[in-house]
């Protein structure tokens, strides 16, 4: 008797045979004439340069995230624009609130400098150390204050 899982097993076997048969026929029939120009890595027709495993700048990630937010905003805007006449003032105000929230986020991102491509230099606090007296009894004044340039 064939159980339900037996049918799944038959499906798996037939699937494996199907793939293996296709690859075997392809191996049998295809022309195979490799030469250095043909097996060279494909880089849009340019000379392949360096390794394919290059490091990506992490700031692309932030830009991609911000793009995604406004991309979704546009996705919401299109159906809203279609039914705008039916919604009237209510729809306008709703979308204004939505856009306002996103605008606040945009301003936040802009002010924080995430859109600046130049790498922000770290603000290292400069520490003024008063000379420590050797007597030990006097006040050892250690002033720490960042110097604003």
């Amino acid at each position: 008797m064939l159980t339900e899982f037996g049918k799944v097993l038959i499906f798996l076997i037939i699937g494996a045979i199907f793939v293996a048969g296709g690859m075997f026929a392809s191996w049998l029939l295809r022309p195979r004439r490799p030469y250095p120009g043909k097996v060279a890595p494909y880089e849009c027709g340019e000379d392949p340069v360096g390794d394919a495993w290059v490091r990506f700048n992490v700031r692309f990630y932030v830009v991609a995230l911000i793009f995604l937010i406004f991309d979704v905003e546009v996705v919401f805007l299109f159906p809203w624009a279609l039914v705008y006449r039916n919604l009237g003032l209510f729809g306008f105000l709703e979308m204004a609130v939505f856009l306002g929230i996103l605008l606040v986020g945009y301003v936040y991102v802009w002010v924080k400098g995430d859109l600046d491509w130049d790498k922000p230099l770290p603000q290292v606090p400069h520490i003024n150390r008063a000379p420590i007296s050797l007597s030990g009894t006097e006040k050892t004044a250690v002033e720490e204050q960042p110097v604003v340039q």
Partner: protein
Amino acid sequence: MGLLDQRFENGNVFVTSLENLLNWARLSSLYQMQFGLACCAIEMMAASASDFDIMRFGIIPRATPRQADVMFVAGTVTLKMASRIKRLYDQMAEPRYIISMGSCANCGGPYWEHGYHVLKGVDRVIPVDVFVPGCPPRPEALLEGIIKLQEKVRRESLVKKPA
């Protein structure tokens, strides 16, 4: 060398039947290398769109030469582009076919005399199977070229070519 490709001295009923099947499969799914060079590419896009619909010939644009069978050289081949086209052709998997589309790709077109930057015919760098005349050719002309290419693919053979 493939196990069966061009290994037969002469055709018999098995070889020719296999040839027919193989050629039918190949001419029915000529995947296209997706790129365009100039205004002929606009006509090529029009041929891809619903009015002309080259997908009914089995032509699907592929974004990598590894999966492409046919390359439409659609537009002016500048000298800078010629080396790229040669490299892309090299990277295509065999069997591979070229359709040269438009006067610029065929012979240099309007740049044939004073175009210091234009290759005078793409057949100077890669072997062309079908030339489609026109400046630019209408999509119907490209379809004609595709049908001509299919007729050529139908005549491909597994029999060893005479040396």
